[in-house]
Every structure is written in structure tokens, then in C-alpha cells.
């Protein structure tokens, strides 16, 4: 099932923080691999995702829940297309930033560039700050987990 492809990426990232997500990422990997080799998934991960979302929707939006439940395959394809679309667009944006110094060379609006200007630093410096911040948070989290386990 195609939804497993998104699950693989999402759960892999979340797997950095918890073994629970790592297990799900493994399941998603297995499912993705089988989907790409035209074989049915061995796990019921897609069903669980389907029911998790359906049950969340059921309380507030019963009609949407029904539509999601009945047309899960269509929704899955939509999500996958949006997912890959945004991935490609992100890659294009990053490329523009690196090569031209702006997200969109054809127009002057670039939020990232404007943010860098607002902070009074270069675009490269902003990237370095963001990377350091993300890595620091990750390091603090891992140290916390390590100490907790100990």
C-alpha cells in the first residue's frame, strides 16, 4: 500500500526519538519494499493507519470519516502525490537557495531570505544556526534518554 511510503519516512524520523516508532518504521519499510516489488504487504500497518485516522475523524466529522474509510486508497494516493510534490518543491527551493541565494529566483518573495535579513545575518549563517539548533536539541534529547535508561 502506497501510504506505507509516507509512513516509512515519517516513522523513520520519529524513530530517532523512540523505539516504538522504530518498530513501526521497520514495518513500514517491509511494506514499502513489498509494495515496490508488487507484492501485498504482510503487515496490517495500512489498516491501522486507516482506522486510526478514521476513528479520529469519526467523532467530529462523521461524513469525512466515512469518505476516508471508503476511499482510503484514493486518499492514500493523494497523500503520496502531495508528499512527493512537496519533497520535489523543497529540493527545488534548497537548490535555488544554494545556487541563487533566494527560494524563488523569478520573484523577490523568499521567506527564508527575509528571515535571515530580519535577523541581520547571511543566509548561510542562518542555515548553520538552524542546523546547530536542531543538532543541539537532538543531542540533549539523546543524553536525557541515555541518563533515564541508566
Amino acid at each position, binding site marked *: 500500500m502506497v501510504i506505507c511510503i509516507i509512513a516509512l519516512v515519517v516513522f523513520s524520523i520519529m524513530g530517532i526519538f523512540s523505539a516504538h516508532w522504530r518498530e513501526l518504521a521497520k514495518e513500514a519499510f517491509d511494506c514499502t519494499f513489498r509494495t515496490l516489488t508488487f507484492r501485498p504487504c504482510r503487515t496490517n500497518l495500512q489498516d491501522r493507519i486507516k482506522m486510526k485516522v*478514521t476513528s479520529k475523524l*469519526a467523532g467530529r466529522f462523521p461524513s469525512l470519516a466515512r469518505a476516508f474509510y471508503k476511499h482510503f486508497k484514493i486518499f492514500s494516493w493523494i497523500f503520496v502525490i502531495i508528499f512527493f510534490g512537496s519533497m520535489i518543491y523543497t529540493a527545488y527551493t534548497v537548490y535555488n537557495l544554494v545556487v541563487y541565494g533566494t527560494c524563488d529566483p523569478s520573484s523577490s518573495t523568499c521567506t527564508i531570505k527575509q528571515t535571515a535579513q530580519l535577523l541581520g545575518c547571511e543566509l548561510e549563517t542562518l542555515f548553520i544556526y538552524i542546523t546547530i539548533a536542531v543538532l543541539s536539541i537532538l543531542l540533549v534529547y539523546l543524553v536525557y534518554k541515555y541518563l533515564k535508561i541508566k
Partner: protein
Amino acid sequence: MDAKKIREDFPVLQQKIKGKQLIYFDNACMSLRPKQVIAAMNEYYEQYPACAGRSIHTLSQKVDEEYRKAREVVAKFIGAKPEEIIFTRNTTEGINLVAHSLELKEGDAVVTSDIEHNSNLLPWQMLFKRGVEHRIVFSKDMQFDEGNFRNAMGDSVKLVSFVHTSNLSGYTFPAEKIAKIAHDNGSLVMFDCAQSVPHKQIDVHKLGADFIAFSGHKMLGPSGMGVLYGKKDLLEELNPFLLGGDTVANSTYETHELLKPPEKFEAGLQNYAGAIGLAAAVKYLEKVGMNDIEKHEEKLNEIITYGIAGINGLKIIGPQPAKLRGGIISFNIEGLNPHDIAMMLDSTAGIAIRSGAHCVHSWFNANNMPRGSARASLYLYNTEEEAKIFIGKLREICNTLR
């Protein structure tokens, strides 16, 4: 019987699961435990966590005494003698013990129903390799068919091994009739009582069974604890299929002298806490009253059966009258996957039911129902309010998803 008062004894029912009050309808799989059972087991671990039948110190003597008492309590519960009670891990082990110890040979036959749990199917399929024939008696409208059963009998039938109460449909087979026909044929009789002993008064002599097997975890007892009852003279004849510590009176490098039953079947260090916990569970059930429990479940089943009858496309597996299905409601709803029903009930209302093949894959495969069914199974702590919530939520789910 006051189910609301009984609920106070079950710590798990006092807590909320995902913010919702737990409604536990998966009792055919695993029952919940009252604090009395937990306390009895904790007492063993905290005060006398020694082994029985070996050492002579005070703690060991205490374990000896409690273990013996546990056997007596369980024996009395089913109308047996203590030496006829073998403690096992579960029903499956009990059935396997008989399957391996009976020493069936080529040309012998074993008869089962068509709605057996894998525990009472696979052991006989394995014996097929030894040349033991496995005959299946097909039910009629999911109820016992005497004609089919009589046709299956014959000189080669050495054992009739039937489920007593089906974990799939809740239907209880007429054990007395089955035992009588089987005995007239010269066959031994075993019943898988995993779903009957916890829910109704069982007397092994009234059943006419030579062997019965049941599990502790389905009757408020601990998991990993089961019982095999066998008639004393039969147990004396049988050879154990597990041998080791505490099964022998003496041994040399070449030979050994087996102890009498039940010890000769209980190899190795036993689950003492489990046995003590099981005895506490039995006492609890006796205190409530087995007949009251049976009536209570039937009443709840009637409420649910009546309540869900109007759901479009809903089909109950098994006999249609609730009275014939004890505390089990196995069903399918057209257009809905049973797993989806179970997941929706769990996540939207905190209702725990089971979905799938319920270890009766053979029946579902034969009936072309690969997804199995949804199953709600009741017990003494379930209430009418819970039954009504279940009905309401099931209707709501059907309206939402279809």
C-alpha cells in the same frame, strides 16, 4: 449477583484507557483478575517463594501445603479427586499431554468437531503422520449433529476429543450425550473446557468425560496456568510425555521409578504462584456462584443480541437464540472488516473486543470467511450499561462507516 459491586474487586476496571472507561468484552481470550487473586500470588512471592515437594524447610513446607490445597480446591470445583488434577500451563498443554501420552498407533482414529480451536486440532493433525486418522464431525446449523457423530464412530475410534463450549460461537455441545455414545463405542472422551469451566457449573462425572482440559487465565486466574483432569485409573496407565524433576521416586543410571499421578505428569519446578492464584480465582467464582454467572452472561447476551439484531447486514455466527451462545456474540457486518469494527470500538469508545479467526482458522477457511469475525465475550463483571453502550457504539460505527 451484583456486577457493579464485583467490579470493585478488579483494579483494571477502575482505570481509564485512552481517557475512556474500559469496557472489556474480550473475556473468551483472557479474563481480568480480581485483587484477591493478585494478592494470593503476591503473598507467595513475598512470604514463601520456595519450591514444593523437594526441600524440608519451613518455607518449602508452606508451599507444599498451599500447592496441595490449590489442587484440592480445583478438584472440588469440577467434582474430581485431587489426584486427578494435573497442573499444566494451559488447555493446549493439557490436550497435547493426552495426545502424546495415549500412544495412539497406526489405524487408530480420533474424532473431533468441525469447530475446534487449533489446540484441539493441530495435535491430531500431527498424529496423522503416525498413521492416526482424524475424523471431523460436521455440525448442522452450527449445532451438534448426532447422526453425523454416530456415523463417524467405529471400532478404530480410540478417542473423541470435542470442544465443550465453542470459543467461536459460544455453543455448548451436549457433552453427556457425546460421552455416552463414545463410551458405548469403547472410545475415550476428552472435552476442551476452556470456555465452559469459567462460565458454568461443571461436574466431570455428570459430563462423563475421561479427560477435560481448561485454562486459568480465562477464569480470573493467572496466565500460564491450566488444568488437565483425567480419571485416576487412566492417568495411572498413561506415560508422561515430559519427564524430569519431581516425577520420579527414584532413579539409577539405567532406570527410574515414576511417582503416582498427578506428580508423574508435573515435571520440573511448577508454577506455584499460578496454582495458588488459580485456587484463589476458583474460590472467588464459587463465592459469586457459577449458576448466577451463567445466568448473568445469558442475560447480557440477550440484551446485546436483541440490540444489534436491527443492524443492517449483521450476521451472528452460531445458533441464533442468545440462550444457546452463553456469553459469546460472534458476528460479521456486511461491508465492514471485523478488524475495523474492533479498532473503531477500541479507539472511539474504549470497548475491547476480539477480531479475526479466534484460533478457529479451519472453520473460517472452510466457510470462505478469511477475515474471521468480530467477537464480544462477556463475564461476571460486565454490566447491562456496558452492553447498551456497546450496542449504541456499534450502531454508530455502522452508520459512520457505511
